[in-house]
């Protein structure tokens, strides 16, 4: 019954320190998770509280009132956002998917494909405000007026990289045997890509498109000097047009309480639209994987 050798005593106190460190860092990880989730919950609750109390039918049916007059809505901005996103999607979705097809089906492993991939990542990283002034210089300056068209182009360009990369990734997961089966049945290569490969990968590609859509739906900076904003109804692609994020920005920095309320209501509507599309993405994506597993 001699005393415990010094080596063991040492290792026991050592193991206590290690246990404490372990618990400490577990605690820190949990704490940081709480700290990340807290502002999110705060933002959502505050948005729901402020937005829901200012939301009414007039918001969806009326156009903005002049300063000092109460009421008014953002009907024209909601419509404007829809039009801008439609123009953007018409440009971004086909170009994005086609580039994705090129990367996955034709350029696999080539230097050109690597360069395209890298450029798409660069384009993805271009700050939205820089996109705004570039499109301003490209389209607005030569035309000499702001237009819905230029705003749509700015949004469309911003959609391209996301769609390209997801399309490529999704097409790469389609087994080669599927392509060979189609070709073996005498299907032309272009037809095999479009109706077999693309179709097999479609849940993932739709996810990519929706993500890109949700991302640009909330963009304000590229629209500041292109779509510019408009207090009245407009459906002309050659005229300035209102957009929901733009209108929220203008109202948020204004000094009027009434406009602040409208900004909150607008934010709520915008968030709900975006969350719906993100949820839809998750639904479509999960349905896709379910199908693949049964």
């Amino acid at each position, binding site marked *: 019954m001699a005393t415990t050798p010094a080596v063991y005593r040492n290792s026991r106190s050592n193991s206590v320190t*290690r246990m404490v460190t372990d618990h400490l860092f*577990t605690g820190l*990880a949990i704490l*940081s*998770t709480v700290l*990340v989730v807290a*502002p*999110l919950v705060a*933002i959502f609750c505050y948005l729901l509280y*402020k937005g829901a109390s200012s939301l009414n039918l007039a918001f969806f049916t009326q156009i903005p009132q002049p300063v000092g007059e109460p009421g008014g809505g953002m009907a024209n901005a909601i419509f404007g956002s829809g039009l801008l996103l439609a123009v953007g999607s018409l440009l971004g979705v086909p170009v994005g998917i086609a*580039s994705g*097809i*090129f990367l996955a089906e*034709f350029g*696999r492993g080539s230097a050109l494909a690597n360069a*395209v991939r890298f450029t798409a990542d*660069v*384009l*993805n*990283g*271009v*700050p*939205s*405000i*820089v996109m705004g*002034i570039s499109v*301003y*210089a*490209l389209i607005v300056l030569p035309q000499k007026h702001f237009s819905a068209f230029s705003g749509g182009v700015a949004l469309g360009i911003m959609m*391209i*990289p996301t769609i390209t990369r997801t399309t490529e990734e999704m097409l*790469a997961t*389609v087994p080669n045997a*599927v*392509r*060979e089966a189609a*070709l*073996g049945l*005498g299907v*032309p*290569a272009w*037809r095999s890509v479009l109706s077999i490969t693309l179709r097999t990968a479609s849940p993932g590609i739709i996810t990519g498109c929706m993500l890109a859509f*949700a*991302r640009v*739906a*909330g*963009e*304000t*900076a590229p629209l500041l000097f292109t779509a510019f904003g408009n207090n009245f109804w407009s459906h002309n692609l050659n005229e300035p047009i209102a957009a929901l994020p733009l209108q929220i*920005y203008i109202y*948020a*920095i204004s000094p009027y309480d009434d406009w602040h309320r409208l900004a*909150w209501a607008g934010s709520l509507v915008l*968030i709900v639209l975006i*969350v719906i599309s*993100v949820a839809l993405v*998750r639904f479509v994506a999960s349905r896709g994987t379910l*199908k*693949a*597993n049964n």
Partner: protein
Amino acid sequence: MDIKIQEAAFNRPRPSPAGTPPPSGEPSAVRKFLLNRGTSAGADKTFAIVMLISALSIFAIVALIATELVLRSQLTLHKFGIGFFFGSAWDPVTGQFGALPFIYGTLLSSFVALVIAVPLSIGLAVFLTEMCPRWLRSPLAFLTELLAAIPSVVYGLWAVFVLVPLLREHVNPVLGKTLGWSGFFTGPNYGIGMLAAGVILAIMILPIISSLTREVMIAVPHAQREAVLALGATRWEMIRMGVLRNARIGIVGAIILGLGRALGETMAVTMVIGNRPEIAKSLFAPGYSMASVIANEFSEASDDLYLSALIEIGLALFLVTIVVNAIARLLVWAVTRGAPVQVA
């Protein structure tokens, strides 16, 4: 109906013998033969060319952006040269343009954002990949994804009406009292300013850093964790030695990618940074960032020199974000390339 059945058949995972290379890669000899058969070769060529043109249009877009920015900023590029980025006078009335206050504001607010966001996002990633109970993982991941989906302008709105009053009433006085000696937390307390911009930026870049960190941590092989655990390590030691050390290059990449996002962020920063072109040491002081000066002053730029100065700031921002993003991508690629199949 027929197509549905075929699709289901395509999607069914086929039993593949161990060691078979993944489906991507060189087309097999059969496929090469079938592709070169000749029928519908014309249509196939056209299709391939259309796809190629689409892919090339991405080059064209980036090239157009770059040339437009360079062409439209010729005036200030010639007049001020490199001194444009070191001058601190910004006076459109007398035609004096120096971009230093904006560069300083962009760098400082992004730095503050990184200081706050990096520990938090790594903590979140560690929790999600190594500690979180399975039932909690998916909802938490969804929540952080939502954080990424909130538009910048909504963050700005929340910052103006909730964050700024909170900082002014509760946080800044405490910071001033305890850390005022350092010189970073002194001066008049408006609420808006560098600190507010840094905090809102931190909240905005958290999701991107933590989701990428998660990705690289998942890419660390399980054998690494098991090996460290088998040597008797505690969980934290396993995370530190087995996971974080292996993933560190990727984590640095994720942080740099977050930095790229923070540098170019416009709307939320514009709404809370204070918009005053001055260089102050204190984080309480209002400042200005490169992106927000463009957003604020572009539409009122009356003469060509003013417009050219703003576009040159945009050009600088463009080049900086390209470099930052390129570095980050290379780092993330270096780690996730050849990663094992993700096990959820």
